[in-house]
C-alpha cells in the first residue's frame, strides 16, 4: 500500500459558519495505480490533491504514507517525505521563467544534494527520454504549451518519485497535446510502474486511468 486516507476532514470558517472542503474522505492507493479524480468545480479535487501531496494540511482524520503517519509528522519531516517520494505536475506548468529547460530540470536535484556529475547525467537522461535535447537551452516562454508541460512532467519525474500528482495537467493544452501527455502518463504508469493521481474534468482523460474517484461538495460519491 502506498498511501491510505482515513476519515479526512478539512474545513474553513467563514462568517461563523464551517464550510467543508473535504468531508470524511477514505481512500487507499496501491503502488502502480493510475487514479483519476473527477468532479465539478469546487468539489474539492485540488484540495484533495494538495492534502495527498502534503502541500496542505487537514483538520481531522489520518493519513498514512508508506507506513509513516503523516498526521503526526512535523512540518520538516513531512517536507522531507514529499521531497523524496512525490513529484508534482501543474495545470499551468509552473516552470521558472528565469531558468532554461535544462536548469529547470536540474532544480529538484539541487535540493536533494546530488553531486554535479550525477545531476548532469540525470538531466541528460531525462532530456533524452522525453526527446527534448534540442530545447535544453531555451527558456520556458520560448516553448509551446505542450512542450512546457512535457518539461513539467520531466521535472516531476527526474528524482524518481513513487507518486506523481497532476492537477489538470492538460487543462491548458489543445486536444492533440493533451493526448500526447496522457499517453506519456499511461506509458510511465505501465512501463515504469509510477503511481499517478490526476485531477481532470475530461472523461476521455479519466479513461486513461485504472480507477476513477468522484467528488461532490467535498465528499466521495
Amino acid at each position, binding site marked *: 500500500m502506498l498511501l491510505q486516507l482515513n476519515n479526512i476532514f478539512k474545513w474553513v470558517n467563514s462568517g461563523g459558519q464551517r464550510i467543508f472542503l473535504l468531508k470524511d474522505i477514505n481512500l487507499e492507493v496501491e503502488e502502480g495505480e493510475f487514479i483519476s479524480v473527477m468532479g465539478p468545480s469546487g468539489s474539492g479535487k485540488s484540495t484533495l490533491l494538495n492534502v495527498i501531496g502534503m*502541500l496542505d494540511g487537514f483538520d481531522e482524520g489520518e493519513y498514512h504514507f508508506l507506513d509513516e503517519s503523516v498526521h503526526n509528522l512535523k512540518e520538516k519531516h513531512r*517536507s522531507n517525505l514529499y521531497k523524496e517520494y512525490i513529484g508534482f505536475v501543474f495545470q499551468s506548468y509552473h516552470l521558472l521563467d528565469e531558468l532554461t529547460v535544462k536548469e529547470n530540470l536540474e532544480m529538484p536535484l539541487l535540493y536533494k544534494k546530488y553531486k554535479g556529475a550525477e545531476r548532469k547525467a540525470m538531466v541528460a537522461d531525462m532530456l533524452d527520454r522525453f526527446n527534448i535535447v534540442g530545447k535544453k537551452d531555451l527558456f520556458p516562454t520560448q516553448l509551446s504549451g505542450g512542450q512546457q508541460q512535457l518539461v513539467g512532467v520531466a521535472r516531476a519525474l527526474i528524482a524518481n518519485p513513487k507518486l506523481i500528482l497532476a492537477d489538470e495537467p492538460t487543462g491548458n493544452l489543445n486536444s492533440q497535446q493533451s493526448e500526447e501527455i496522457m499517453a506519456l502518463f499511461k506509458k510511465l504508469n505501465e512501463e515504469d510502474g509510477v503511481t499517478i493521481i490526476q485531477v481532470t474534468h475530461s472523461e476521455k482523460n479519466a479513461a486513461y486511468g485504472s480507477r476513477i474517484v468522484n467528488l461532490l461538495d467535498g465528499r466521495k460519491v
Partner: protein
Amino acid sequence: MIKNHLKIAWRNLLRNKAFSLLNVFGLSAGLAVTTLIILWINFELEYDRFHDKIDRIYEVNNQHQINGELWTWNSTPKPMAPVIKEDYPEVESVSRFFGDIEFLFTHNNKNLKAKGTIVDPDFLNIFSFPLLQGEVENVLNEINGVVITETLAHKMFNDKNPIGKTIKIDNSDIFKITGVLKDLPLNTKFDFEFLIPWSYLKKKGHDDENWSNNSVTTYVMLGANTSYAGFSKKIKALRKNYDKSSPEMVTYLYPYARTYLYSKFENGKEVGGRIDYIQLFACIAGIILLIACINFMNLSTARSAKRAKEVGIKKAIGAPKKILIMQFLGESILLTSIAAVLTLGIVSLVLPYFNALINRPLSLNLTNVWFWLSAAGTVILTGVLAGSYPAFYLSAFRPSKVLKGTIQKVNTLVAPRKILVVLQFTIAIILITATLIISQQLNNTQNRQLGYVKDNLIYSLMEGDTEKKYNIIVEELLGQGAVSSITKTNSPVTESWSNSWDMEWVGKQEDDQTLILRMHADNAVVETMGLELVQGRDINLNKYPSDSTAVILNISALEHMGFEDPIGQVIKDNGTDWHVIGVVKDFVFNSPFQKIEPLIIEGAKGWFNVIHMKLNDANTTSENLKVVERVFEKHNPVYPFNFEFVDSAYANKFNDNKRTKKLTVLFTILTILISCLGLFGLASYMAENRIKEIGIRKVLGASVNTITTLLSKDFLKLVLISVLIATPISSYCMNKWLESFEYRITVSWLTFVQAGLLTISIAFVTVSSQAIRAARSNPIKSLTTE
C-alpha cells in the same frame, strides 16, 4: 546551488531593469551619504590623536564661581607654568602657548608674513611634531633661535639648507634658524609656521608675574606613572599660594585628547561640544541608510506577486525554507554589492565638493585594508538588513496557495509596507522642517539691526611703525579725502577682545560679577562706526583733551549700572577714573546670534591694535583704497598694507551656520529623493497589480480623474499620517536647536504647514504620474490578458 541562485538573481535583475535601477540607485545614494559622513566622522575622531604621549597630555583650565555659576576656561596666567614645573615633580614637561601671532620675516630683502607662536622648550617634547632638522632637546634653547616648518623654510630659502641662516623678525630682532619642522598634519588644532622660545618674550620684557592676567594656554605632560585622579586633586589648590586676587580659583587639568571633541562646559561639567555634531551626523547617516534599506524592502516585497510562483514551485519541488531565505538574502547582498561599486564612483566624484562644503581634507584611502574590510562589512550588513524582510516574507508563501492555477494578486499597500512608507516620510518631513527653520533663523540673524554702519568701513591691524606715526597717517588720510573719519580701537568692531567684572561705579552691587565688554577708542568712534547716540556726544580729543579718559556706554551697560543721569558719572577700571560723556544704542559687537551684552568704550588712555577707517562716500572704493594703501606704505614701508572690510568680516560670522544649512539642504534633498524613488516604485507596482480593477471600473464608466484619485488616495493618506507624526517631533528638535542661540526666531506653525504641503505635493506628483498612466490604459487589454 549557489550558481543556480546567482543565475536566477542575475536574470531577475536584467528582466526587471527599472526595478533594479531604482533599487541600486536608491541604495547607492544612501550608501554614498553614509560613506561621506563616516569619512568625516573618522577624520574628526582621529583629530589630534597622533601625539605619542596623548594620554599624558593635559590642558590647564580654571574653574571659578561667578554669580553662582561655575565657569570653566582655558587661559592661564604666564607665571603658572614655571610654578607647576617647580612645585610638582609628577609633571614631566610643561609648556606655555602664547596664542597665534603674525610676524614679518625678512631675509635678503625678502619679506614674508608668517603665522606662529611662542612656547617653552618642552613644547616639542609634549606634542609629536617631528623635526626634520635639529634636536628636540635644544632647538628652542637659544633666545634668538627660531624653529620653522619646511614650507616656510622653502619659501624663505628655496632649496638651501636653512639651519644657521639668520632672519630679521618684525624688522627688529635677528634670529637664527635652529630647527626645521615637518609641516603640521591637517588634523591638529595647532596652526603655526614657526616657534619662538619663551626666553625671547622675557628678554623683550613682555613676560609678567601677574596672576590676574589670564592670557596664555598652559599644557602639561604628566610622568608615565602618575595617576591623573590623584594628581588632579593635588593641583586643584595651586593658586592659593600665588594668586593674591583670586586664591580660591580652582586649577583643573583637562585631558588634551578631549579638547577637540568636547570642551564645552556648563557649570563645571563637561556637556559635549563638537561631539554633539558628530553624533547628530552619525544619526543622519544611519537614518538615510535605513531609508534606503526601507525602499529596498518595499520594492522587493511589492514585487512578491512575481516571485510568489518561484517560491511555490521551489517549495513544491522540495526546497527548504532555509535555502529560500538564503537565496533572497544573497540576492539582496548581490544588489548591495553592485550599489557599493556605484557608491565608490559617486563618492570619489563628490568628495572634493563635500570637502569644500565642510572645509575638511577627507580622502578615500583605497589601499587601506581596513577600508575594504569595513566596506565589505557595510555591504553585507546593509544587504542583510535590506533583504531580511523580503526574504522572510517571500519564503513564507504557502505553495498550495500560490500554485492554484493563477497567482493571486498581492496588495501593494499591506500594513508593514505602510509603516515603512510612513517612517520614511516622517524623516523626510523632519528634515524639510529643519531646513526651513535653519534658513529662517539664518536670514533673520543676517538681517538683524546691527546698530552700526558696516558699509564702506574697513579696519587694519596696527603693525610696525603705524603706532609711532599714527597722527601723521590720520592727518594725511583725512587731508587727501580718502577717509571721512578714523579711529583706533583695541579690537575690530566685529570681535570682542577684552572684558572685565572688576569695574566699579557708584551703586554697584557687591556681589555683581557680571562680565562687561570693554572697547577702547581714541577719537570719533561714534562717527566712524556710525553708532547712534542717545545721550551726550562722541569722543572728540581735539576739542576736549580730557576725553582721553572719556567713556561711552551702550544702553545695556547703562541699564545694568542703573545711572539715572549717566553723563558725568565715573567708572573705575584698570586704575583709571573714566567719565561718562555719552550713551549709544546697543550694537552687535560679538556674535550676531547672542543678545547684546553691556559694553563700555574707553577713551585714548587705553591700548590699541586696530585702525578703523570710514571711506569717503564721495569717491569710489578703489580710489579710496589706493590712497589709503599709498599712505600706509609711505609711513610703514616694510609691511605690506593689510585691511579687511567690516561687512565681509561680519559675513564670515555666518559661515558655520551657512555650512550647517547647506548640509541640511543636501541631506534633505537626498532623503526626499530616496523616499520618492521608493514611493514611485510602490505606485507603479500598485498600478500594475490593480490593472484589472482599473479596467473593470473604466468599463463601468469611471473617468481618468476618479481613478487617479482612487489610486493616489491611499498613498497620500500615509504621507498625511507622516505629517502628523513629524510635526511634534521636529517642533521639539528645532526649538531645542534654537535654544543654542540667544537671538532667535520663534517657530511659526506656518512653517510646519509649508513643510507638510511641500511633502504632500512631492508625493502626489510621484504617485499620480503612475496612477494617471494606469488610469489611461485601455481596459480591453487589461481585461483580456488575464
